[in-house]
């Protein structure tokens, strides 16, 4: 059987497409199948990527149904490395550390499947970067305390806390600038 698209090569891909309840048989060669978008992968081997991307493709739609006002996941693009959600879903790999932030709304279902239901890290924290993390946590805590003290009109204590926050934020900012 010849390919129904190019009418040159032998058809190697045979499948049925159902559109609006109407069944249509399709016989195409590999080349045309790729061009027409019937298949997305050049690599036909069954790999972890294929398996994963299967999971990914499943997720945006599910999310789209549950949150109607959000844009579809595949229109998102990482500002830092330019990877789109669609590319991520296709190759199953992140482009850079920032992708985790960009696609964060869509990651929990994926992580849950891959990591036995887990979505949050529990384990080693790097020494240097980790120091900032605990400092930032502390600043957050202090800010909350400051609000409380102000509400209680304990202005003297509030001033002390305010100075402490300022000092901590200054060192944090300095460290960040020093890294650039």
């Amino acid at each position: 059987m010849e390919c129904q698209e190019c009418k040159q090569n032998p058809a190697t891909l045979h499948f049925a497409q159902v559109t609006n309840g109407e069944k249509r048989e399709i016989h195409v060669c590999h080349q045309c199948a790729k061009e027409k978008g019937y298949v997305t992968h050049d690599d036909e081997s069954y790999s972890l990527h294929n398996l994963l991307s299967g999971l990914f493709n499943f997720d945006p739609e599910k999310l789209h149904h549950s949150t109607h006002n959000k844009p579809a996941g595949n229109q998102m693009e990482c500002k830092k490395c330019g990877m789109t959600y669609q590319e991520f879903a296709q190759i199953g790999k992140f482009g850079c550390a920032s992708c985790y932030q960009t696609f964060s709304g869509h990651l929990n279902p994926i992580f849950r499947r891959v990591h036995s239901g887990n979505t949050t890290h529990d384990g080693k924290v790097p020494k240097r970067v980790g120091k900032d993390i605990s400092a930032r946590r502390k600043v957050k805590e202090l800010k909350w305390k400051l609000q409380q003290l102000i509400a209680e009109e304990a202005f003297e204590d509030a001033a002390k806390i305010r100075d402490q926050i300022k000092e901590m934020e200054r060192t944090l900012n300095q460290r960040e600038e020093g890294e650039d």
Partner: protein
Amino acid sequence: MGLEQFINEAISPWLKEDGPDSDIVMSSRIRLARNFEKSPFPLIANQEHLDGILYFLEKEFNHRSYANYEQLEFVRMADLKPTEKQVLVEKHLISPHLADKSTYGAALISKNEQVSIMINEEDHIRMQLYFPGFQLEKALEEAFQIDDWLEEKIDYAFDEERGYLTSCPTNVGTGLRASVMMHLPALAMTRKLNRMIPAINQLGLVVRGIYGEGSEALGNIFQISNQVTLGRSEQDIIEDLTSVVEKLIEQERHARTLLRQQSELELEDRIFRSYGILEHSRIIESKETAKCLSDVRLGIDLGYIHHISKSILNELMVLTQPAFLQQYARRMLTPHERDVFRASLIRERFTLEQREEL
């Protein structure tokens, strides 16, 4: 070069030592995946980024030592010949991915070959640490120290919620892949292992053959490793793996005892046939080699064979792989030539044993 010297150079020094439970556990490995915070991951990074990482790591770590891991040597993939890369793969010092796909790949390898830090593979950094026998806890402890040492110079991509950020979602969190290589001939022979695998999988652990393609486990050598990296601490992951490995050791020992009780003569026959093949064959494929080596090793462990060193299985599994054979032959070999060369290398190796005996 004589075979003795070739083996000395070919076998990683750490592999020559005996570790705990080394009659069953051949080695323990810890792998940690890490990335630079500010650079795109190798998959999409441009040459400038990847060169920058190579330059930085070479400058900071080439020829440095940490504790027992002396003289890290910085090796660029671009500077190696295909067989040289393949030899590193066969020694498990680098991955096939780094050898074949990573144009800007490199590795920092310690002199004793216990530590290998792969650079610009799927992640910017993948450090692996090997220990002989069953020593997961110790391996993790020391891998953490090396990790801290690297972190003194590197800003890791780390997120409070997600942990260490990796290119593939399957590694995020701890970035840890802990694995042990086990010789399980009795469990394989009695088909008990197949029945145990589903239960092991349920704990988030994976069992696979380490030599050979797909699910086939050449030489009855299996790798057990963790799959889950997010939401569990490194210690918990190691604990789970350890308890499964302990169970497997117990079961393997039990199966060996049973085999001996129920079919001693058949077992002995099988072992000595394999011994005969290795010692006398003129043409041998890798599959048959692996089977015979596994039998002979079992024969040594069970006390049927006395005058051969235990390390022969580990050693010959490495040495009879294609790239090593070609390196020893100092030329390219066709598959048939490889089988001839493999047989002659094995015969020579057995002769060495007899000489040591005298």
